[in-house]
Each structure stands twice: as structure tokens, then as C-alpha cells.
């Protein structure tokens, strides 16, 4: 039956079926962005929450009404600070380890890297985030209790350690690709000039791979910023300005998980939570933008 179809209409079918799929995906993304933006912005437009207060206020308590405004306390600064704190600390922990491993498997032991290290690190990618959280809850929190001699052991530090473990494979894998993409002629040139292997790596290979390495780091940070459940399991969940790394705190994502279903759609509290969602979305778009800027500026990343 299909065989008798003239070629031109066959081509049209192909074009329209595939085009429809692309259109559908694009439409869904646009719908998502519009919906999150609309719900998130209605906190300010419809409910009359002050934008400045939202981003600089330090009290987040949806259950309590602020006498001054008649609205719940929606100062999101503690959540924003905590989110950035766990993202940055986890990146600082993971970065040297990830790039160090990448250098080792690309420059020093390529065969070992390809055969053993990479499959192993890919295995780490596959471990679900709740399992990381579970290990964090049992192992890392206990370790923090023992080391710092505190009662709870929940907070930003255990959260960052768990996140560091989770973004390690992302950064490592991308760094390996980045280093592999450096042409061998660079290395040979450097070695021929009498540089040692380490000097070659430090001055030549890393330097020429810098844009791709930065992309790797930012992708890792994107994952850390958006990660939810693993962090929730070890951070304690107190929505207040963090005063130390081992005191209970709450990130944007963990607040969303615990509060989202509590407040009815359309309420001020619910809108405020959507604003947090909008903030998360905005941050991930911002991270993408940076990656594009790096890509446009320096060596073209792998894609």
C-alpha cells in the first residue's frame, strides 16, 4: 500500500512526521518556560510581593504572615545563598580531583584509563541520586558528626560532599574528552623543546583545553545547582540564613520538594514557590548562556 505512494508525497509524509516531532518538543519547552514564568511572576504582579524583598529578605516562612505586608515571609536570600554555597563548595571539592584524574588517564596512563577508569567513572554516573543521598545520610553525616563533634551533622558541608561525588563523573568525563581533543602535535612540539611531561601538561595541554574544561565545570555546576533529593536527605531543611557549614540549612530545590505539595495552586505561598522554580530555570538558562559564550569565544567545544 505504502509502496504505491508517489515519491513526492512520501517525502512530504517524512517531512511532516519528523517536523511535527520537532515542533512538539519545541512547543513543550516553550509551554514549560511560559508556564513557569507566568506562575513565578504572579507572585510579584498578582500577589504584590516586593521584588527587592523577595531577593534580599532573609526570612522565609510561608506559614507565618508578615504583619507589615499581610503576606507570608518570602525572603528567599537564605535559600539562594545556600544553593550557591553547596554548588560552589562541591565544585571546589570535585574540580581538582576530576581534572587530576582526567590528566592521569589521558596523559599518563591512557590504556589503563580507557580500559578501567572510564567504565568505572561511567558507573558512578549511573548511580541514582537517591542512592547518593542514602550513602550521605548514613556515612557522610555520621562522619561529620564524629569529626566535628556535633549532634546533628546535617548541613551545607555534607550536602556539598554528596554533590561533589555526584558531579565528579560529569566533570571528569567531559574533561577527558577536552584533553583528548588537544592535538598530539602540541605535545610533541613541547616535548621536543625539552619540556618535561608535567610542564607540557601544565603549560600546553591544559592551557589549550581551558575553554572546554570550563564548559565541563559549568555543566557540573548546573547539575549541582539543580540536584534535589540527595541534598534534601543530608541538609536538614531549616530555611534560615546559614551561619556555619555544619548547621541545618535549605536550598532552593529542597524547599521546593518539601513545600510544593503543601500549598494550594494559586495561593501566595504556592506562587512564591513557583518563583523559586523560575529562579532555578533562570539559573540553568544562564549557565547555558555562559557555555555558549565560552564556545563562541574559544575553541569550539565538542557539542
Amino acid at each position, binding site marked *: 500500500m505504502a509502496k504505491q505512494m508517489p515519491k513526492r508525497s512520501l517525502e512530504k509524509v517524512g517531512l511532516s512526521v519528523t517536523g511535527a516531532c520537532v515542533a*512538539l518538543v519545541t512547543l513543550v519547552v516553550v509551554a*514549560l518556560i511560559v508556564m513557569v514564568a507566568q506562575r513565578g511572576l504572579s507572585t510579584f504582579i498578582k500577589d504584590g510581593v516586593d521584588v527587592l524583598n523577595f531577593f534580599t529578605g532573609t526570612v522565609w516562612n510561608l506559614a507565618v504572615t508578615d504583619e507589615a505586608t499581610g503576606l507570608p515571609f518570602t525572603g528567599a536570600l537564605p535559600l539562594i545563598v545556600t544553593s550557591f554555597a553547596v554548588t560552589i563548595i562541591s565544585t571546589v571539592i570535585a574540580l581538582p580531583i576530576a581534572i587530576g584524574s582526567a590528566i592521569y588517564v589521558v596523559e599518563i596512563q591512557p590504556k589503563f584509563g580507557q580500559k578501567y577508569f572510564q567504565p*568505572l567513572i561511567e558507573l*558512578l554516573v549511573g*548511580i541514582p541520586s*537517591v542512592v547518593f543521598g542514602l550513602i550521605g545520610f548514613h556515612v557522610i553525616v555520621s562522619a561529620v558528626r564524629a569529626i566535628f563533634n556535633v549532634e546533628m551533622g546535617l548541613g551545607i558541608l555534607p550536602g556539598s560532599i554528596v554533590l561533589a561525588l555526584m558531579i565528579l563523573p560529569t566533570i571528569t568525563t567531559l574533561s577527558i574528552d577536552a584533553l583528548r581533543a588537544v592535538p598530539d602535535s602540541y605535545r610533541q612540539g613541547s616535548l621536543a623543546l625539552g619540556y618535561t611531561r608535567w610542564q607540557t601538561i601544565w603549560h600546553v595541554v591544559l592551557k589549550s583545553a581551558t575553554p572546554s574544561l570550563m564548559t565541563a565545570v559549568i555543566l557540573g555546576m548546573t547539575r549541582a545547582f539543580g540536584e534535589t533529593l540527595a541534598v534534601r536527605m543530608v541538609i536538614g531543611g531549616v530555611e534560615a540564613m546559614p551561619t556555619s557549614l555544619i548547621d541545618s540549612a535549605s536550598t532552593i530545590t529542597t524547599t521546593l*520538594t518539601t513545600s510544593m505539595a503543601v500549598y494550594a*495552586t494559586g495561593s501566595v505561598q504556592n506562587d512564591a514557590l513557583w518563583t523559586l522554580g523560575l529562579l532555578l530555570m533562570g539559573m*540553568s538558562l544562564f549557565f*547555558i548562556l555562559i557555555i555558549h559564550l565560552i564556545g563562541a569565544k574559544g575553541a569550539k567545544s565538542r557539542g
Partner: protein
Amino acid sequence: MANATAPAQDARIKRSMRNDKIATGILTVIVAIVMAIVVSMVVYILFQGVGQLFQPGFLTEASRSNGTEGGIAYQLFDSFYLLVLTLIISVPISLFAAVFLVEYAPDGPVTKIASTAIETLSSLPSIVVGMFGFLMFSVNFGWGYSLISGAIALTMFNIPILTRVITQALEDVPASQRDACLAMGLTRWETTIHVLIPAAMPAIVTGVVLSAGRVFGEAAALLFTSGMSSPARLNFLSLNFASPTCAWNIFRPGESLAVHIYKIYGEGSPEAQHIVWGTAAILMICVLLFNVLSRIAGKALARRMTAE
């Protein structure tokens, strides 16, 4: 003059050599630590949980007391069912989207907009996808907590991964094959269906199975879409798809293994802890299986293709 600088140069060379050795040493230690961490994590989970897998009823009974007693049979089934539903929706969409992007509109504004959209989707935190799914499907469409809401949320999570893999696979097919087909008078659609997709099949299958592993362990997007509970009993023989006890009913709530772990990780009773670790172990084993399977399937397909 040459004599005067010689010792200094010697020292510098020596220092360089020593630095080289130190750096190599440090890197070796780092790699050893990373490998030790990965291995000990996997071993720890399996050590804690594998014993539970052999408890009678753990894999075959429904959970009781909010998951703190009984087994995880329905969670296990729901996880796989969600995965299958997700793949049924996401594979064709991703496949055709990739074909469009590679074959029909290689460069231009359409491709640019579409790939930006897909990239955006891939970078969104899964909790945001979950919130959107909750509002759109569970509330606005009135599906409540249901497997189909969850599957669509997971689809949104899966499409960017799959599209990227398939696009890559199609692009890797040599241009000569494409040219040969077009020269023979085949349309682009025929070329794609008969030549390109079969040629890219090993890479596609590997990608699909790998993405399955990601989907299988996802939890944040499911909390508000498919819910945090499984029906107390399911009838696998029922073909009445509207029945709430029919296992295949896509409008019933369901709970994946990952969500189950999140639900009961804090419960203190020893039995609940055994269940948590057992669930983590089975989740790990499934994900590892997907990992291994994707390699085997990709290799096997590639071998068959080249043998032809």
C-alpha cells in the same frame, strides 16, 4: 658564560624532573582515591542490601505500613512499567526529531531554535520538570497522581538525552552512503528509513538503553507526578484498563524504586532500613545491568550489521 649558567640550568632541569615526578605521584594518588571511592560505594550498597534481596517475599510481596514492612514487588513493577511507557513515548519523538534536525533542516533558524529548545530542556533541574508536570498533567488535565503523568515528565527528561545520542549517530553515518542513495533516486525519507537509521542502529540502541538507566533512577520529577504510593494490590491478569487494580492501567498512581527510597529513608525501624538498603541494591543492580546491556547490545548489533 656557558660555564656559568650550566649549574643553574642543571638545577632547573633537576627541579623540573622532580616536579614531574611529584605531579605524577599526586595524580596517581587522586586516581587511586577516586577508584577506591567508586568501588567502595558500590560494594557498600551491595553489602548492605543484597542480603535483603534473598529474604522471602521481598521481591514478590506488596509493601505494607507505608513501605516500612513487606516487600517492594509493586515498586519494582512500577519502575519498569514507567520506563516502558517513557520509552514508548520518547523514542519515536526523539528519533523523528533527530532525523528532522540532521536530514531535513541541517542549518538554519529552525534547527537553531529547536536545538536551543532541546538544550534548554536538558539543563532544566528535574524538580522544575516535576513541578511543571504536576501543574499541567496532575492538576490541569485532572489526571491526579498517575503513571502517565510520571511517564510524560520522564519523557521530557529523556528526550534531550535521546535526541542528542541519535543526532550524533545519524551524523556519524558516512556521507557517501547518503549520497549513493540520493544518486539512486531515493527520496530523503527512503534514504533515512532504509539506510541511515539501520546504519546508526547500534549507536541508537546503546543510547536508548543508557538513557533507560538514567530514567530508571530518577525520582525528583516523579514525586509530584506519579506520586509516592503504589496501590495495595494489583491484578496483572486484568485487561480492564480502567480498573484501579489493573496493573496496566496508566491512570493509577505508582511509585518507582527511587521514590520509594526517598519516602522511607528516614524511617527508623530496622525492617524499614533493611528495605531501604535492599531497594537501593536492586536499583543499583538494575542500573548496572542497563549499563552492561547497552554495551553488549551495541556490540552485537554492530557485528550483525557488518556481517551483513
